């Protein structure tokens, strides 16, 4: 082991080691018959000694993988050769997993997985290929690797929010999922629902979203009955403030809809399109635009058409209103296109919805005459019916409050009149109007 932080220390020694490693790489890559049984323990020991180390503390505690330059591993000139050697060793035609499995054990794999937290993307790239080979060649370690991966993810989601190798691990898992046998085991389904779906809630989603979405879609292609679970999960974790993430969610949703079976679509169409409608009314034009692109997708369009009696009412009010109020002209014209599609799809339904929307609007207008003109904030449409409900709600809470006060006095007796504010608190339930 050489000190690479001090770049001038022991240059000669470093050069000797580099040359030796180079030779090893050459040898294992090109010569046949050198991987005899007695060298396995030495090879694995050499690899372990060189690559397994506690990763140093990050120099930048608020390291943002998107913005900041990663800290590169100073000992890479040696480390790279060790990784290269390890990889060629695993890929050599002479390599015998049955011999190697005595040395490549669970502990070895665990330490290998811990290295995925390395800040150096070059190191993670090697680790990714190596772990993939290990997974392919050591059948006995497969379940263990999957379990440890899910532990890493769970810790990442619920404890640390920091692990550099999430994208790489997901990439490996993507191809692992691809190879799952049917029917899927409960263990695998649980992994999807309890690990992959919650992974969507992590702040740094953008770093690994492509790989994550790939994994999710792989699962759905294997077993369509999981669709409802997945979509409800995504709706649960739908970003509330981060528009960048919202765009990613919409992208993933479209990928899912691309492979969805019509029988599954029916199960989730209502909550899904309510969310899509919320996105269309987002003041952030990229979110609205991304949601409206759904209507450019032939397959999604055909699904909507088949179920227009449910989908249209779910989105119509919002679309209609946004078409009048959105600040961005591109969005407005996109919505017009969508409305036009609806009209062509089912003219009768379209007319009915327009009429009932206008009617509600009128009612709302009657009880609330002056609509604010300038602030282009898109409010949920307030119909007279909703206002009446809000009113009822307020009365309910007031009544409850009074009842509560009476109860309090009743139980405490007359001996000590409690100092309660008698003015009923303005019911928070009515805050909507």
């Amino acid at each position, binding site marked *: 082991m050489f000190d690479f932080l001090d770049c001038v220390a022991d240059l000669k020694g470093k050069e000797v080691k580099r040359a030796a490693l180079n030779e090893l790489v050459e040898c294992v890559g090109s010569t046949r018959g050198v991987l005899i049984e007695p060298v396995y323990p030495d090879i694995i020991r050499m690899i372990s000694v060189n690559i397994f180390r506690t990763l140093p*503390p990050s120099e930048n505690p608020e390291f943002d993988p998107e913005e900041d330059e990663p800290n590169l591993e100073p000992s890479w000139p040696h480390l790279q050769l060790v990784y290269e050697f390890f990889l060629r060793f695993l890929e050599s035609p002479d390599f015998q997993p049955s011999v190697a499995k005595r040395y490549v054990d669970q502990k070895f794999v665990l330490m290998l997985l811990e290295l995925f937290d390395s800040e150096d993307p070059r190191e993670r790239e090697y680790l990714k290929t190596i772990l993939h080979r290990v997974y392919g060649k050591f059948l006995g370690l497969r379940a263990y690797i999957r379990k440890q991966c899910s532990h890493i993810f769970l*810790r990442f989601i*619920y404890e640390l929010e920091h692990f550099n190798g999430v994208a790489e691990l997901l990439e490996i898992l993507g191809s692992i999922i691809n190879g799952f046998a049917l029917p899927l085991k409960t263990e695998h389904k649980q992994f999807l629902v*309890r690990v992959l779906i919650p992974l969507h809630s992590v702040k740094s989603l953008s770093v690994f979203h492509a790989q994550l979405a790939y994994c999710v879609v792989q699962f759905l292609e294997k077993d369509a009955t999981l669709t409802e679970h997945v979509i409800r999960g995504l709706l649960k974790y739908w970003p509330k403030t981060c528009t960048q993430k919202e765009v990613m969610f919409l992208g993933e949703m479209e990928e899912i809809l691309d492979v969805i079976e019509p029988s599954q679509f029916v199960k989730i169409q209502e909550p899904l399109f309510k969310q899509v409608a919320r996105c269309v009314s987002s003041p952030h034009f990229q979110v609205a635009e991304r949601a409206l692109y759904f209507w450019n997708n032939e397959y999604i369009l055909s699904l909507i058409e088949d179920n227009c009696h449910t989908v249209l009412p779910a989105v119509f009010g919002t679309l209609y209103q946004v078409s009048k109020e959105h600040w961005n002209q591109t969005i407005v014209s996109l919505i017009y296109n969508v409305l036009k599609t609806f009209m062509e799809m089912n003219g009768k339904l379209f007319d009915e919805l327009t009429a009932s929307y206008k009617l509600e609007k009128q009612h709302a207008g009657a009880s609330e005459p002056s609509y604010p003109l300038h602030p282009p904030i898109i409010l949920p449409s307030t119909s007279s019916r909703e206002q009446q409900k809000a009113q009822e*709600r307020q009365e*309910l809470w007031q009544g409850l409050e009074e009842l*509560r006060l009476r*109860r309090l006095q009743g139980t405490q007796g007359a001996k000590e009149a409690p100092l309660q504010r008698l003015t009923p608190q303005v019911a928070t339930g009515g*805050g909507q109007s």
Partner: protein
Amino acid sequence: MAGVAGTRMGQGAAGGDGDDSLYPIAVLIDELRNEDVQLRLNSIKKLSTIALALGVERTRTELLPFLTDTIYDEDEVLLALAEQLGNFTGLVGGPDFAHCLLPPLESLATVEETVVRDKAVESLRQISQEHTPVALEAHFVPLVKRLASGDWFTSRTSACGLFSVCYPRASNAVKAEIRQHFRSLCSDDTPMVRRAAASKLGEFAKVLELDSVKSEIVPLFTNLASDEQDSVRLLAVEACVNIAQLLSEDDLEALVMPTLGQAAEDKSWRVRYMVADKFSELQKAVGPKITLNDLIPAFQNLLKDCEAEVRAAAAHKVKELCENLPMEGRETIIMNQILPYIKELVSDTNQHVKSALASVIMGLSTILGKGNTIEHLLPLFLAQLKDECPEVRLNIISNLDCVNEVIGIRQLSQSLLPAIVELAEDAKWRVRLAIIEYMPLLAGQLGVEFFDEKLNSLCMAWLVDHVYAIREAATNGLVKLVQKFGKEWAQNTIVPKVLVMANDPNYLHRMTTLFCINALSEACGQEITTKQMLPVVLKMARDQVANVRFNVAKSLQKIGPVLDTNALQEEVKPVLQKLGQDEDVDVKYFAQEAISVLALA
């Protein structure tokens, strides 16, 4: 007790019969199910109102089952629910019925979201105290056992936090079971659960019988401290503090110290960091003898650890460690066993290490006394005052008061000055800001002569700094200086210089004059304000920049109370009236405001 509660309940129910029909549970449940999350959240937050309106019996038989059955909601709603239920005992009929709250909380303790789970555990811990011993064994302990053997890690993690609250009041047989469950969680397959168990190990040890601590907790501690994951091992270090407090010195030496020694040399820096970070607590827990034998050598290693993070954490603890050594022999130990390592750290390659040391090193002077400080520490202070990293210098300067008490600051003043000057002119405005804040303190310690001679010009230079925050801080600093050195000093040294700036070509500097006057008028008193400051302010009312003019109005409002009626009527009023007719709206506004506040209308 139960009878009393019963009658009360009956009365309540009878009194509210008519109302109850008005509010069938269905309506309330409708509210709790509303489509709008915000409305659901509001309803949950008023859950106690609902419960009171329903009365204890219907709360138990209708509301709680509903809540238990429908726990599938937004985490935000669940969090509010978990919190509410912790204070619900009275609303279900008192301690005898506290167990009715367990089912919904049990479900909440198994959800995925950590904050919800933690809140549910917190509420469960609260409610456990309200259970009678019988109810505790009949209802609470079985819940803990169910959670502890749940199939997903979330419930087992939650269980870890509940053992210590039910153990003390359980019978011996149940106690044995509880210990058994805790033991198995400590070797759980999932690292998340082991971490949760490790983090509660200390708390659990505290409620156990001494024998069990020795026979059960210590082996668990040893195992966790050698876990395959460093995130578990480091939590064992934390537990060590609690365990060490419980054991006798001999037991400690035999049972705990070997493990702790290993932790201090762990291959993962995170574990070593934890040892360094918890050092003072560990030191107090193990007592003086073991500290000398085992901890000091470990500390020396931490101070020269290969990872800067660890060295910095250890450096932070230097002062506390020395303070807590037994008086007898303290000086020798520090001089021989600690100081040599500190000397090394002064020239460490990492600035965080140096800066951590600089923040505590001055504290050693009171412990070591005058002679040692001058001979051994002073050279270190001086070296740090010349450090290339401004933070190091700043940390030394900000702790000067400790040294001042022991050897007086004069010893340092020759080196201090260049350090202060350099910081005062540092390119980073945050550094300049930090040194400004210490200026009044320094001035107090160095004395008025030294200040006038060397530092006064710095303070004046800050008033024309190009960063507003610096000018502002410098202005406030002047007030503290005047409070320290007195009015006369202000009149001779500061006020003339401030007033000169009123003629500066840069309007920002002219405004600084006004800000200084605002700040200083009260400290300087009526005479100086009236005679020296007021004429300048009044003259500035004719400034061509509107910002200056409306600040004149603001200044007049500010210094008005310090002036006498005569000056107000004769001098201030006409000027404000004139400004009240200004062409600029802001000037007009502030002039009118001043007129009305000073009652000059």
